[in-house]
């Protein structure tokens, strides 16, 4: 009995923040015009729309495979080039390799990149490269820097400084220390970050495709535009298979690295 009373006391502290949160939520909903009525309406409409989209147009399946592959390739190339860019940024962002001032500038650039959504980068790039895969690949590559560059930079900073000092003491120069001391140590993390980013880039390549980078995203957007909903559903199914497949694959590989990492 006594303990039960005591366990309720803990929630007293939460009461005021909870009321505040409720008030702010309600205020935000009023400002945005979001109501439960609309939610229910939308849900029923959405459900009937989904039913209306059925069945998928299987005849479009074959012709959508090529754009699907294109989307995957855009994501792949974007991740490869992005990883290379990120490694360079990460090396300059690590306190144990880089100069204090260079580090803070590079760290700022990485943070700055992270604050820009990929879609904004793409729109800027479309102005330079025109619509198509090229702009998408570059947008995804740049998009990697904010995430992989940051994570990898932190990983490098965890490397034993005296180990680097000991390489310095046999006369190795910076490039050699990076190649023989830093890269082998960060390799498992690097692969794991890159695989994770590849998953994200697959999803992003669909979204960017709809905005003008080509691929399956464009097909989806096009089908919706022509009100060919059965066709659109086919595209959605292909996208789900793509995303699910790469997620499983990447998870499998990352788990493998993790267990191998335990063994060192």
């Amino acid at each position, binding site marked *: 009995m006594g303990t039960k009373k005591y366990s309720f006391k803990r929630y007293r502290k939460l009461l005021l923040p909870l009321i505040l949160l409720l008030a702010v939520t309600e205020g935000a909903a009023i400002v945005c015009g979001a109501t439960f009525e609309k939610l229910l309406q939308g849900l029923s409409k959405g459900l009937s729309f989904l039913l209306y989209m059925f069945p998928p147009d299987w005849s479009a399946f074959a012709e959508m495979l090529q754009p699907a592959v294109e989307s995957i390739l855009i994501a792949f190339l974007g991740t490869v080039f992005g990883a290379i860019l990120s490694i360079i940024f990460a090396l300059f962002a690590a306190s144990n390799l880089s100069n204090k001032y260079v580090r803070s500038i590079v760290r700022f650039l990485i943070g700055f990149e992270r604050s820009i959504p990929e879609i904004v980068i793409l729109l800027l790039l479309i102005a330079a490269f025109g619509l198509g895969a090229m702009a998408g690949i570059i947008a995804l590559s740049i998009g990697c820097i904010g995430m992989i560059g940051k994570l990898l930079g932190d990983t490098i900073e965890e490397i*034993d400084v*005296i*180990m680097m*000092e*000991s*390489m*310095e*003491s*046999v*006369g*190795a*120069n910076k*490039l*050699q220390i990076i*190649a*023989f*001391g830093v890269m*082998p*140590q960060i*390799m*498992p993390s690097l692969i794991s970050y890159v695989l994770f980013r590849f998953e994200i880039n697959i999803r992003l390549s669909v979204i960017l495709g709809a905005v003008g980078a080509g691929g399956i995203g464009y097909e989806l957007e096009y089908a919706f535009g022509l009100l060919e909903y059965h066709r659109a559903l086919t595209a959605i199914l292909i996208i789900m298979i793509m995303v699910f497949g790469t997620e499983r694959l990447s998870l499998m590989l990352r788990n493998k690295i993790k267990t191998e990492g335990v*063994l*060192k």
Partner: protein
Amino acid sequence: MIEVKNLTKSLPNGRKLLDGISFTVKKGEFVGILGPSGAGKTLTLRCLNGLLKPDSGEVILEDEKGLKHDLCKINKRELRRVRQRIGVIFQGYHLVKRLSALENVMIGRLGQINTFRSLFYGFTDEEAVEALKALEQVKIANMAEMKTGTLSGGEMQRVAIARAIFQSPALLIADEPISNLDPSNAKIIMKMIKPLSANIPVVGVFHQPEMTAKYCTRIIAIKDGKIFYDGDPKLSNNMLAEIYGEELSQIEQQEHAIPMVAVN
């Protein structure tokens, strides 16, 4: 031969860390540096391979050709060249854990080979054979292909010694090489370091007077940044008490002040 003349180093507040340290170590000598913690042992050692620049004084390394290099005066580029021939062994091993034992040994020559070659080609077969011989010398050739991170402390320290041997050094420095090891491994390591002093000067910092009495040919004791004793490795109990005096008495006082209880 290594010649140290009048090394001084002070903190900005005027506290003298090194106060006129001078000694010469010739080939055939295995010098053990003893002293209480904070006396300046490791600082002295770091001056010997140029990791630390003293405020004043000279550190002159003479190679087998009779060329003399003052480590305190030469520029960075030359220092890197001289360091190629200085083997260093650390207390915490500080090897590249994800590389194999053999690769860690070969790192010892990074400074001596062309950067371009080391980055894009790596080491030659002849170098690999020679590195394996170095591992044979420390009796762990059978572990050459194992990842260094999976080895025990004693084995890692042997890899570090093999790396120093592979450098074909003109001077060997050891910073508390046996402090992390159990007594039997410590003996093995001392037995492996000692024969190296036949051809080159060997200088090490130790905390084990019983070990240095057995294996070193000469002891230098440093206290308050000054040389307190320089001579025969077998020290009398009185001398040991004088070297470690303050530290020991402090510990004894603490033991009286804080009752210690063993907890399982």
